[in-house]
């Protein structure tokens, strides 16, 4: 029963994908109903399971069938239910459902943005042939994405997770390139997929290292790749292996986790693989909200938290993650400060916020990482959907459908009265992401910086630097978000005339409301509400506090890591335990060494967050958030002319940041351009020139030439043959004589 319920979570949206993909003639209403309905049903199934597994201490695994088997390899199609996977399920389906709903209006072919956006893109003669199905095509992709994302979070082993992992990359590719007539969109889609593939390469490499090592083989000698087996095995090796074996294993784990991190950095747009995400904004705005803000890009964070057991075994990897993450957060924030395209501001903001989640993961504060993942899903989805609503309004106001015009904040201004609902929801989300006190972002960001600082998994000096730079970034976040807010909603409406006088002279301030329809504003308001209050889940009166809720997933890993650090294995723990070889089987709450954990817990403690040690962090956060808002107001609040002074103040740095620190052109210069030259040279020079022409055909030519040269021998003249005969005999005789003489000497 429960297993069926669990399976139906990912299957429902996938079913929706199949139905929408196969039956192209469905009416718009039917498409919307199927798309939203399947995700909503998944959400309900998720809620039921969420409630029933809230207090579990061990994961529940449902195995459906053997998916890949060969020799000792035995990969099951199995889903794992625990607090983490179920929470992720709720986020994906909950936010997903709202965004699907929003998109039913946003993507509607007539009267709204999509048709015009599409019409603008599509000048091809036959374009309409597919465009008829654009609506259902969009929702089939969106459902495909949701289903695969659910497989990613619910999978019970790394291989099945990889199915979702690559699958969401595929869905992202399809949705970024949704307007396939637009060359830039197809480029962006391709870029996203390829950069993700580089990440996937690292993920696969890490997975192969893991599965081919001692950690990959479970007690029965099978390679199952399941989380339960691998962590049980890692635990067993940690606690029983001798010093040398353990050292070797830890070195390998460093390699594995670094590969995993690089894989995660592809999906979650961290340095060095973040370049695809800003371009991904070519996709329709609901896609940006769902995939490139709320869900898919958090898969990397999920991977690290899911593998916390492995990551905590390698302090080196943790340090790398923390440092890379904080640099990502910082640099992305500086870039966001300089962008004018509203969606690109949000894209860099997403990269920066993902950086915060990775900071948390790198410092071992996994629960705040997931907490921030959740709150970020709410406020960033709200921001993106709000941006979509703004763009929608801008199209009405300016009559233009060129993204370069309607998404440019220099053309906006003063929209707060024209779009009241969009305005207040975006304001709330801006406050949340800036970390304004008592909003969701305030609690989650603070938890990251606070707990990250307390936890001793990386050296104190690293923690200090990371947290300090984290606070700088928090300030920048507040500044750039309110830069966006003020440029968009305050001041006076600038319109196209502001930049392009010849074109937009007639477009002055729009008259009357340009607010979006109900299907768009309702999800906005729900998300804004969540962005406002979800922070209180930290304390959750009458509910399980977030920290305790997720503890079963990561607590054991944290304690084990601490115990390893303290070197307590070997004597007490092993002597007292002895149950550690019982990895969880299927379909039951298998206990994997609770005895030891209890024992460890009695000797090892994680530093606990208290009001006392939290206060300074709260104070700094508050000051920075409010300071940032005030700073933004002082520059962009009323007078757009001040913008230039801001630009001048930073000079060349501003331009560098505006071009995303030149990473794109750097990659192009290092990899793409030389690569293409190399490939071409290999083909024409080496493959066709050397191997084929010289070696292969050369052999043929030599053979033919040789044949020609000996053809003269077959002259048919008897006297010539007689000559050969005599000459040959003489030669043989000479050889024989020489041989005899040689032997005589020997």
């Amino acid at each position, binding site marked *: 029963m429960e297993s069926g319920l669990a399976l139906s979570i990912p299957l429902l949206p996938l079913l929706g994908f199949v139905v929408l993909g196969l039956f192209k003639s469905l009416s718009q209403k039917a498409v919307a109903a199927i798309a939203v309905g399947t995700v909503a049903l998944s959400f309900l199934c998720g809620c039921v399971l969420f409630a029933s597994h809230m207090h579990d201490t061990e994961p529940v695994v449902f195995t459906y069938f053997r998916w*890949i088997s060969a020799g000792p390899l035995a990969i099951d199609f199995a889903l794992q239910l625990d607090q983490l996977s179920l929470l992720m399920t709720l986020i994906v389906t909950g936010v997903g459902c709202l965004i699907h709903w929003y998109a039913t209006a946003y993507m509607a072919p007539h009267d709204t943005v999509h048709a015009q956006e599409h019409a603008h893109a599509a000048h091809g003669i036959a374009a309409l042939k597919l465009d008829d199905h654009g609506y259902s095509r969009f929702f089939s992709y969106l459902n495909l994405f949701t289903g695969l994302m659910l497989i990613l979070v619910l999978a019970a082993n790394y291989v099945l997770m990889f199915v979702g992992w690559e699958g969401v990359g595929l869905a992202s590719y399809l949705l970024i390139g949704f307007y396939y007539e637009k060359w830039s969109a197809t480029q962006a889609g391709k870029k996203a997929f390829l950069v993700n593939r580089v990440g996937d390469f690292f993920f696969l490499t890490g997975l192969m290292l893991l599965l081919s090592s001692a950690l990959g083989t479970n007690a029965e000698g099978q390679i199952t790749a399941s989380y339960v087996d691998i962590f049980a095995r890692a635990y067993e090796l940690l606690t029983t292996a001798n010093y040398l074996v353990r050292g070797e294993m830890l070195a390998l784990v460093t390699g594995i986790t670094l590969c995993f991190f690089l894989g995660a950095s592809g999906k979650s747009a961290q340095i060095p693989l973040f370049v695809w995400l800003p371009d991904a904004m070519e996709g329709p705005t609901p896609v940006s909200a769902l995939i490139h803000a709320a869900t898919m890009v958090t898969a990397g964070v999920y991977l690290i938290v899911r593998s916390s057991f492995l990551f905590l075994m390698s302090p080196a990897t943790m340090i790398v993650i923390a440092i890379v993450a904080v640099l990502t957060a910082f640099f992305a924030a500086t870039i966001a400060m300089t962008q004018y395209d509203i969606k690109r501001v949000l894209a860099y903001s997403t990269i920066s916020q993902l950086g915060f989640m990775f900071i948390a993961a790198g410092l071992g504060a996994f629960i705040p990482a997931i907490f921030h993942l959740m709150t970020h899903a709410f406020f960033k989805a709200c921001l993106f959907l709000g941006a979509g609503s703004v763009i929608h309004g801008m199209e009405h106001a300016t009559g233009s459908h060129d993204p370069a015009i309607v998404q440019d904040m220099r053309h906006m201004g003063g929209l707060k009265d024209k779009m009241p609902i969009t305005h207040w929801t975006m304001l709330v989300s801006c406050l949340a992401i800036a970390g304004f006190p008592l909003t969701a972002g305030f609690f989650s960001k603070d938890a990251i910086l606070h707990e990250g600082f307390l936890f001793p998994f990386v050296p104190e000096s690293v923690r200090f630097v990371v947290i300090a730079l984290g606070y700088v970034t928090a300030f920048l976040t507040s500044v750039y978000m309110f830069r966006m807010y003020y440029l968009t909603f305050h001041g006076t409406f600038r319109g196209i005339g502001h930049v392009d006088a010849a074109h937009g002279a007639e477009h002055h301030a729009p008259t009357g409301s340009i607010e979006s329809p109900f299907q768009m504003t309702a999800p906005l308001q729900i998300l804004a509400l969540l962005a406002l209050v979800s922070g209180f889940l930290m304390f959750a009166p009458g509910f399980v506090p977030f920290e305790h809720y997720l503890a079963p997933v990561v607590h054991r890993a944290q304690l084990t890591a601490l115990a390893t650090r303290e070197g307590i294995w070997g004597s007490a723990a092993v002597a007292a335990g002895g149950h550690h070889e019982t990895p969880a089987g299927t379909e039951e709450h298998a206990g994997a060494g609770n005895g030891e954990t209890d024992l460890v817990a009695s000797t090892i403690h994680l530093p606990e967050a208290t009001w006392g040690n939290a206060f300074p962090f709260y104070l700094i956060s508050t000051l920075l958030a409010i300071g940032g808002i005030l700073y933004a107001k002082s520059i962009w609040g009323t007078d757009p002319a001040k913008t230039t002074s801001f630009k001048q103040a930073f000079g060349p740095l501003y331009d560098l940041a505006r071009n995303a620190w030149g990473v794109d052109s750097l990659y192009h210069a290092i990899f793409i351009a030389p690569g293409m030259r190399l490939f071409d040279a290999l083909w024409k020079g080496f493959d066709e020139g050397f191997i084929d022409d010289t070696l292969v055909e050369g052999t043929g030519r030599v053979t033919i030439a040789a044949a020609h040269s000996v053809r003269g021998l077959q002259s048919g003249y008897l006297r010539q043959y007689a000559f050969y005969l005599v000459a040959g005999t003489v030669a043989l005789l000479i050889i024989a004589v020489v041989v005899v003489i040689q032997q005589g000497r020997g």
Partner: protein
Amino acid sequence: MPSSGIAETQTAWLSLLLVLPLLGVIALLFQKQENDDQHFATAMIISLLTFCVSLVAWFVHGAEPGAGFRLVEHYKWIPSLGATWKLGVDGISLCLVMLTTFLMPLAIRSTRATATPKKYREFLMLLLGLETALIGVFISLDLILFYIFWESVLIPMYFLIGIWGGERRINSATKFFVYTMVGSLLMLVAIFALWHVSAAKSFDYEVLLTDPGVASLTASQQWWLFGAFALAFAVKVPIFPFHTWLPDAHTDAPTAGSILLAGVLLKMGTYGLLRFNLPLFPEATPLWSPFLATLAVIGIIYAAWVATAQTDIKRLVAYSSVSHMGFVVLGILAVNPIGATGATLQMINHGITTGALFMLVGFLYDRRHTREISEFRGIIQVMPVFAICFWITLFASIGLPGLNGFPGEFMIFLGAAQHSREWMFFAVTGVIWGAIYMLWLYQRVFLGKVDAKSANAHLHDLTPNERTAIVPLLILMVVLGLYSPLATDRIQPSVDRLMQFSMLNEFGQVPARIPIPVEPDGGIGTTPEEAAATSGPAATPATDLEPGVDAAPAVDEAATDPDTPVSSEDPATPTGDAPATDADADSATEPNTGADTPATDPEPAPAPTDGATEEGTDGN
């Protein structure tokens, strides 16, 4: 005598598989030329019948547990040479036979999708002849027979390229023929050398596997023989740097030829490597594998890079084929069950996806008569169904999980990683390179705006005929992607058995070739008479621990004499059953007899089916 449980397997299904396409050739021969519909119908019916027969073989094979050869047919053929007509399939070859018989009707279907080739009758005759030869390669259990089929594949393919090919067809066909044939000559020498060293003086694959003479070859002797076989296979696969015939052959081959060339012909090489090189020369494998695996890895990366630079769609797919076959070779050379199972699965998958890719490229060529990528743009707008078909195939080809390319690739990577992390690392980069050339191709051909003035604007979408040819392949991609055990359940036991002969243990010995002392009563669960019957020929040598000396007397008496009547389970065979072989046949029908005596039975007589050896592996 064989019990009733095995009776239905004695229908000569495999010979029927070989004869059916030839019957089609004859039927076509008697038809009047230029009657294209009739030719098409004949060839279609014949190829579908062949497919049905292979389906029967599939189910008959599945009905019997075990890893060894099934449906074995064994007749006298060239007694003076010791060559016999021995056919049989195990999970590996059966999958490849299925691939062949499955692709053939689709390839034939695709020939009449838009444009029918000239001299259609002859075209179809060659295709059907090719089918017989291909099936023969996979089901021969006698090395001479294998070699004959191996070489006879060249003839129809040569004419298919040379007559119906593109601009440089003569050049490409000649290169294909000469290159692959020269490569195979040393294999013939090696086959005779094997016969020479074998104690049984036999070409029978199963006899050679356990033959003490072959087992006693030194590592350096094995090195030479391995090399001779490997050269033939390397050219066929093709392994870098022997690959340059392939892009030319593909570019000039007609579509149906390309489908079979990429879909099946290339697998002959990897099949041979797995079937012959690994188990026959286990001690040479570690000597060769670093070298060959390096070439395979170079091939994976290099061919993908070169594919990226291509301007002709078909050449691009051809190079991608070289790259993908590198994965298969790598999986085989990992010499472990995971890698080999993955490699076999990937042979099937590659046959399906690359066959489909060539078919789709052919459809496009029929419309535009060009394959230059730069000629196309945005054709998704005018050919949406075609674009979706191409899209699925392309993602299957680059190993997207959920489609068929992934499980095989995954196993190959893991198998390689178990052998060498370096191999694995460089091979896994293939997932990046593959995505680059494929997605770039897709973008340039299908995406963007179609130019209203260009010929692309007037392309018509796939016709129903074309859809019937491509859709079965697409379905298979999805099915195998979601449920690979469909194939691996058959492959895995046979691979395990092969690996018993191929993998060296920690002492550098081949476990399957080390005789283990047996209980005289023949094992648990057998009745006394059965035990007596089983242990009759087997018990004599089985106590000796030294490989290579033990089985000689039994073998000499039973099998070295070429006049010994060859046993057969087929009641129709005129030869009488000698008592010894009778007993052996009995042992094969009784799964329990050999349960605890794996590999001890040196197969004194050319056993009609797998004897104790494979039964022993079943329990593993």
